[in-house]
């Protein structure tokens, strides 16, 4: 009986290990498991790699960028350069993350440098654009 019990407990261990593995697989690689499986469920997108979505967003944003920039009036091309520079400092989200929660001190340090650099851009870029744009006036008299 003891042996039976022992065997049962062993199996329990094995089983739970297997289940844990399965859970991990499921959590880490959603999509991998179903790939060969239910195409219909797949169609609903539950299993699609987020990269595909990001790529779609990237491609569409390029189209938007193309059109929106062509519609900028040539008289404002200099402010355009300044403002695109300012908005490209949205890389600040990476810097904030590094400073805010990076486990490693080195990483936080890099983040801090990035944060300082990019803050120059954020404030400098938008303010200098504002200064420029404030100068464009219509004939009023």
């Amino acid at each position, binding site marked *: 009986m003891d042996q039976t019990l022992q065997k049962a407990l062993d199996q329990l261990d094995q089983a739970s290990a297997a289940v844990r593995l399965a859970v991990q697989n499921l959590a880490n690689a959603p999509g991998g498991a179903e790939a060969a499986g239910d195409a219909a469920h797949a169609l609903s997108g539950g299993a699609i790699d987020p990269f595909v979505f990001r790529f779609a967003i990237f491609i569409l944003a390029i189209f938007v960028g193309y059109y929106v920039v062509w519609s900028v009036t040539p*008289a404002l091309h200099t402010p355009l350069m300044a403002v695109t520079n300012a908005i*490209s400092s949205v890389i600040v989200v990476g810097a904030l993350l590094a400073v805010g929660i990076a486990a490693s001190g080195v990483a936080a340090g890099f983040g801090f440098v990035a*944060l300082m*650099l990019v803050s120059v851009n954020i404030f400098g870029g938008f303010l200098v654009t504002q200064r420029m744009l404030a100068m464009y006036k219509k004939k009023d008299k």
Partner: protein
Amino acid sequence: MTVNLASFLYLVSGVLFIMALRGLSHPTTSRQGNLYGMIGMGIAIATTLALATPSAGRFGLIVLGLAIGGGVGAVTARRIAMTSMPQLVAAFHSLVGLAAVMVAAAAIYAPESFGIGTDGDIHAQALVEMSLGVAIGAITFTGSVIAFLKLDGRMSGKPIMIGGRHVINAALGVALIVLIVLLVTTESKLVFWLIVAASLVLGVLLIIPIGGADMPVVVSMLNSYSGWAAAALGFTLGNLALIITGALVGSSGAILSYIMCKGMNRSFISVILGGFGGETAAAADDGIERTVKQGSADDAAYLMMNAQKVIIVPGYGMAVAQAQHALREMADKLKANGVDVKYAIHPVAGRMPGHMNVLLAEANVPYDEVFELEDINSEFAQADVAYVIGANDVTNPSARDDKSSPIYGMPILDVDKARTCLFVKRSLGSGYAGIDNTLFYKDGTMMLLGDAKKMTEEIVKAMDH
């Protein structure tokens, strides 16, 4: 804050950035556009803070970083002269490039914090995206520094041609690819820094052979690069705001480069290969006797006060001389006297797109008196005087008539169609393209040799007599 809400907010900030650029389609909506941009940035920052919930200490560090950087940025923005915009933009780009490198470094040193795997087990896809981001970022950094130094005159504008540079660049490019593959397989931090180093060197080598005058195209190209770097890191961090913004900035820079190249009738490749515009050629000496009619400020004042229509054509020399305020005064005098005054802007007048517009705006010239080439070119035929101030190449008729000219095919302002053409510049020297301007020797042309600002001020004085 749930990640879904956060992603949604990042999307909102991306859309606000789109609206910011959209606003620039007209001066009246442009200020609102800039405001959208600021709000978008604010949302991106606030969202990240709400999501990351840093400890008090780390939060203090963040505030410190923002304050230091923000302070420097704000002061710079307030102090900078409008004529220094090209170098300011170049300097700012270098910061974004370096920041991208730093963020990537942080990610590789603390991968768990960025959710891209664990130390020694970073997702291969993230590594590829990251190394693309870091390489482009590093190239942007050193490239922009060189561009800044050349534009700011701290380094000679002369193209620096290193023997075999094409071979070296190609070798570096291959090395980069090998290093990226190595990084993905080994995840070694040393390899990461080698990628950074190779890219930094490549950035320098790519830009030094390009002449100072071509720097605006380079700045715009680097702007585009900084966008692609941001987008690449956006993929790594899974951040919608970064991906959208990166694509916007990438397109924007590419389109402006294209517009400049087209305005100069040169191919982008020929700009990048460099070696143009370094030396300023003297007036061509082809043995033909040529006479120049020179005039004084009084002559110019008399001519313009008795004209019905005057078209002002500003160029790079106006920016150098900071003559825009004097010019505006002169135009006021003319208008008070009943003369019809308009400004004609060539797409590549000055040294960056929209350069002249921003300077005229600074001098309070209303933007509805300022016209683009296509809109005003036909009016020169009806103008009594074309007042060309510090412009040269953009008026050179050989671009229109002389098939052998290097600038043949570039659109020009037809100032030679005006009854009289007044040319304000310091000498008979050539402009950026280093080509002699046959207009100086034409009958209807009167040269007003001198500094643009001084000459214009003298004309204003002469108008009072």
